[in-house]
């Protein structure tokens, strides 16, 4: 019994360390790690499932750091770059990290509280999954219309949305296209268009930042929705959550986006046991490690163990995010801002090339041009999510 407990704690901690690596390295995702872990012979049961689940949750805490300090986005953090980077330029980079870590932690707690209602809603007895699946194209169309229609210049917003959407449709046929696309749309374009000013000294303030509960709630609800649907990523969830709250405050935006990101991964794991469907690469890996038994009346024991490891990893990740964020925040203003921008761009280009090759680089360049267009036309960044929304709408329409 004690040996088992030690094994669970050890693999949770190993997963936590893995998640730190994947969270801090732009373009390196837990899904990539999951594929590598599948080939290891000693990870063939619950231990592998614990490791990858812990890594997935930790990743959602740590990925705010490269987004804030380097401006390198992933699918989950594409929309958070602008508010986080904006806070960095005001000397509040550490505050952005703190808010994100706290929002992610609150998201985990809220997700635990919503787990049973979630199970009843999408599984037995209500079985709303099919209804939600059928309603999804309409939800996505409604979000798209809302994003465009609520822009200051609707004509320009529509142009950017359709340009990004067309781009998304074209690149959906190409391999490893998401990371270079988002890196260009949200990352490189921000860096290139950034005003060349001095980076102020970052304030390290340990006072408790308040986070609105509605921000966390909207993020968790959006995360619930997308966790059950195929092809719908946390990037779509963040768009939905952000548009539903309509907040222009950077702090709110970061809180919403971070809680969405964490909740999505949490409910992807829950969905695996409720619907027996894997909605992410790491969930597919868990299926390989473990024989998944459906959650009917009582939660299966493996699920309870994985949830316990998620809680442990979340607590560790909360403190790790703040700790690492503090170290970087203390030292980043020593670097000349222009040099930091060049370095950031170089890192992003290197990551794109390593993970996506020459085709990825071509995608990245075109995406950067579209992102620059968006900034020059003064159109809200959410419109660039057309890159994911439009292909997804077409995919769901095709299904029905």
């Amino acid at each position, binding site marked *: 019994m004690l040996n088992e407990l030690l094994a669970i704690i050890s693999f949770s901690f190993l997963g936590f360390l893995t998640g730190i690596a994947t969270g801090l390295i732009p373009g390196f995702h837990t899904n990539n790690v999951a594929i590598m872990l599948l080939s290891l012979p000693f990870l063939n049961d619950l231990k592998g499932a614990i490791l990858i689940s812990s890594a997935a949750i930790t990743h959602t805490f740590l990925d705010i750091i490269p987004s804030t300090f380097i401006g390198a986005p992933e699918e989950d953090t594409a929309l958070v770059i602008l508010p986080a980077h904006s806070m960095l330029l005001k000397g509040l980079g550490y505050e952005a990290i703190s808010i994100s870590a706290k929002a992610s932690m609150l998201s985990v707690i809220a997700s635990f509280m919503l787990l049973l209602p979630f199970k009843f809603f999408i599984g037995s007895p209500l079985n709303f999954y099919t209804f939600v*699946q059928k309603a999804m194209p309409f939800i996505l169309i409604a979000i798209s219309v809302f994003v465009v229609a609520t822009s200051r210049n609707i004509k320009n917003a529509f*142009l950017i949305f359709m*340009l990004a959407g*067309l*781009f998304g449709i*074209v*690149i*959906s*046929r*190409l*391999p490893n296209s998401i990371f270079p696309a988002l890196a260009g749309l949200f990352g490189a374009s921000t860096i290139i268009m950034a005003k060349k000013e001095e980076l102020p000294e970052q304030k390290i303030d340990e006072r408790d930042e308040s986070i609105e509960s509605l921000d966390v709630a909207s993020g968790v609800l959006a995360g619930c929705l997308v966790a059950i649907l*195929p*092809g719908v990523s946390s990037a779509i969830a963040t768009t939905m959550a952000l548009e539903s709250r309509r907040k222009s405050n950077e702090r709110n935006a970061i809180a919403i986006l971070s809680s969405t990101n964490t909740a999505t991964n949490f409910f992807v794991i829950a969905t695996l046991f409720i619907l027996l469907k894997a909605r992410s690469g790491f969930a*597919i890996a868990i299926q390989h490690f473990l024989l998944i038994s459906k959650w009917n009346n009582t939660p299966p024991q493996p699920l309870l163990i994985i949830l316990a490891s998620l809680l442990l990893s979340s607590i560790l990740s909360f403190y790790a995010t703040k700790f690492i964020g503090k170290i970087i925040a203390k030292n980043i203003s020593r670097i000349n801002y222009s040099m930091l921008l060049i370095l950031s761009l170089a890192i992003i280009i290197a990551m794109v090339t390593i993970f996506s090759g020459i*085709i990825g680089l*071509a*995608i990245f*360049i*075109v995406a950067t*041009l*579209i992102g*620059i*267009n968006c900034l*020059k036309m003064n159109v809200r960044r959410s419109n660039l999510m057309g890159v994911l929304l439009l292909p997804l709408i077409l*995919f769901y329409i*095709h*299904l029905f």
Partner: protein
Amino acid sequence: MKYVILAIAGIAFLYGVSQLYSPPHVDLSNIWKYEGKEIITEGKIINKIGSMFEIRNGNYTCYVYSWKKDFSYGDFVKIRGNVGEKNGMLVIYANEIKLLKKWDGETLTLPYLAENFIDYIDCNVSIVGHVYASYTDYFYLIDEYNEYRIKVYYENSSFEKFQKVVVKGRLRYNSHRMEFYIEGANVE
């Protein structure tokens, strides 16, 4: 405006690249890993219902949605399409279907069919054999050593005993009588 034109030119270039790119070639056993993605796979058509048909490769089957209907049972096809979900099942929404091997591209012997019936059940087959006993709407087809026999439903069965024929039809199994038979036959 300059950036808009450059972006459109870039998208056109990527479209050209995407036409040259081929999605991964996947076994039917692994299509579950590619939900929402485009793949290429192969299989033999074992069932057709409206705009949907079922393919099999080895022990795995999958449903395919396609508006193309000019395929027969037993045709071995290559499909390029997107993996999706419908009513809790994984299906492929075909963008492109290519015929790799027509079902009547090879003529089988009865012993071979008997040994490999799993690969041909519910498919069209072309078998060579000899007529053994002929009745009003069926006859028995045997191999040259009279070791294997199969019932062939065919109207106007007026053949000479031991006449060599090539039978083209669909291999089925009658679970009540526990026997294999050929239906919808065309005899040459």
